[in-house]
């Protein structure tokens, strides 16, 4: 055994609590701020303990507009974020799994060419082609629509790569058996490949849901009407950096609401999250 256990364990516990403190403190302050009224925050002497406005703040932010400006209800923004995150996650998984199936289980001209076309998109993140992509979406009339928010982000080289790697480990005997039973490729896909891929799908889903929910640059460009705003963009639009008019109680409440869904997904599906993170980065 390595010596000095109990003493070094104590140091480890203290160090980790220190780390958790650093990690949690900004969120704690935000949570506290979301229970105070605007004036208590704005004067710069916010109490470090919770106030009485918890229900009022969350109710007002979610379901009632603001008095100072007409702004979209945060519940609408959350719905938009949810639609965007789910469409991106499910869409990426769906189109990647069928692409990978085609590349692994069929032989056809330019098979690897197609694979490389998908693979190289890894090197074209949206940031390097922002304005031309925006122009295409505008030309297609997809601005301010769920289709415009999601479809341009729905291709996925990492998911395709991951499914391809996984399919290569499925024993050939399964395909042969399925062929002997007289089942065609689509039948084999539904009855064998999809059920076997459930673990990978769950892991990918967690990562891609977070990716979709947290999108910033793309929805910022694509949405102009308030009704299509996602919650992350909504927060940005509420903050007027140099202006004293920012309603910090609403901003802090919205910030909490923007964090809750993805953080809950990570904590509740921690096992899948860790697997997804490690798999997609391989």
């Amino acid at each position: 055994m390595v010596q000095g256990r109990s003493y070094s364990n104590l140091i480890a516990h203290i160090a980790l609590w220190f780390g958790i403190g650093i990690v949690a403190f900004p969120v704690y302050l935000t949570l506290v701020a979301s229970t105070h009224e605007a004036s208590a925050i704005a004067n710069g002497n916010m109490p470090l303990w919770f106030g009485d406005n918890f229900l009022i703040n969350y109710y007002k932010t979610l379901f009632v507009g603001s008095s100072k400006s007409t702004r979209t209800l945060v519940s609408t923004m959350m719905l938009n974020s949810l639609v965007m995150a789910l469409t991106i996650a499910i869409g990426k998984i769906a189109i990647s799994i069928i692409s990978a199936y085609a590349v692994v289980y069929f032989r056809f001209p330019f098979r690897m060419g197609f694979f490389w076309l998908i693979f190289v998109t890894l090197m074209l993140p949206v940031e390097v082609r922002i304005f031309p992509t925006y122009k295409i979406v505008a030309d297609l009339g997809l601005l301010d629509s769920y289709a415009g928010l999601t479809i341009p982000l729905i291709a996925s080289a990492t998911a395709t790569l991951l499914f391809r790697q996984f399919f290569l480990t499925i024993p050939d005997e399964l395909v042969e058996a399925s062929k002997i039973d007289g089942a065609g490729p689509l039948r084999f896909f539904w009855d064998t490949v999809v059920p076997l891929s459930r673990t990978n799908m769950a892991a990918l889903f967690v990562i891609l849901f977070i990716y979709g929910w947290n999108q910033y640059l793309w929805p910022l460009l694509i949405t102009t009407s308030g009704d299509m705003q996602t919650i992350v963009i909504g927060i940005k639009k509420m903050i007027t950096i140099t202006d004293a008019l920012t309603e910090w109680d609403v901003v802090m409440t919205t910030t909490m609401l923007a964090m809750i869904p993805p953080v809950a997904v990570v904590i509740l599906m921690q096992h899948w999250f860790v697997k997804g993170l490690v798999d997609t980065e391989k």
Partner: protein
Amino acid sequence: MEKRAIYSHKLLPYLLLLPQMIVVIVFFYFPASQAVYQSFLLEDAFGLHSEFVWFENFQHVLSDPDYWLSFVVTAIFSVSVAGLSLSLALFFAVMADGQIRGANAYKTLMIWPYAVAPAVAGVLWLFMFQPSLGILAQIIRDRFGVDWNPLLNSTHAMLLVIMASTWKQISYNFLFFLAGLQSIPRSVIEAAAIDGASATRRFWTIIFPLLSPTAFFLLVVNVTYVFFDTFGIIDTMTGGGPSQATSTLVYKVYNDGRAGSNLGGSAAQSVILMIIVVGLTAIQFKYVERKVHY
């Protein structure tokens, strides 16, 4: 590795590939090629007439002091965030790796910031350091007598975005360092302990070298993160300012293109970014290949 049992079907594979191919061509390759094409064009102010100018846009961009400033900003930003978040994460991972009670609970409590959107992380930290109402901003001003103002002071603004970006990235690095540490065989470490190596010596001579592939992989991922994913942090906290002090390469492409006056210049910047991404990805895959040969 290839499959032995395969299907021979003329049309089906193309149909299966079709959805992804449409997205990839319409929203990836076509816009990327447009960016490359535009980077060789010079348009007049009204966008009515354009002229093929070869590398003139690139010459303009590369001789623009603002562009070099954003290179410097990106370099300072990347080195600080990668350095800070890697070393902090490594420290906490080493602490969590010992067989202490509640190791799993600690892990959960450390990794959740991964799920926080960069833009939201920016708001969290802005709230603490906002000059007029931020609690920590007040402490800095009252206790340390520093005239803290990230809205006007370049150094303060840079510190602010570095802190928020580091905070956001610690959880990711922690998870990978912890996984790396746990894959080191206990027996090796215990053998060294029996030989009388101190904990510090064990760390630097055994654990750290065995962890270096993880560290290198994380370094590349972190640099990519700082380049691209911090856009939301910068946009919510400083908007690239004051006077471009936090305007990274990616932020500058966005800002210059949004102003819309210089399409060719913005496109040339995009092309330079593409080259950087290709380089980063190549390094990443070269490393992965080496790991496979191990």
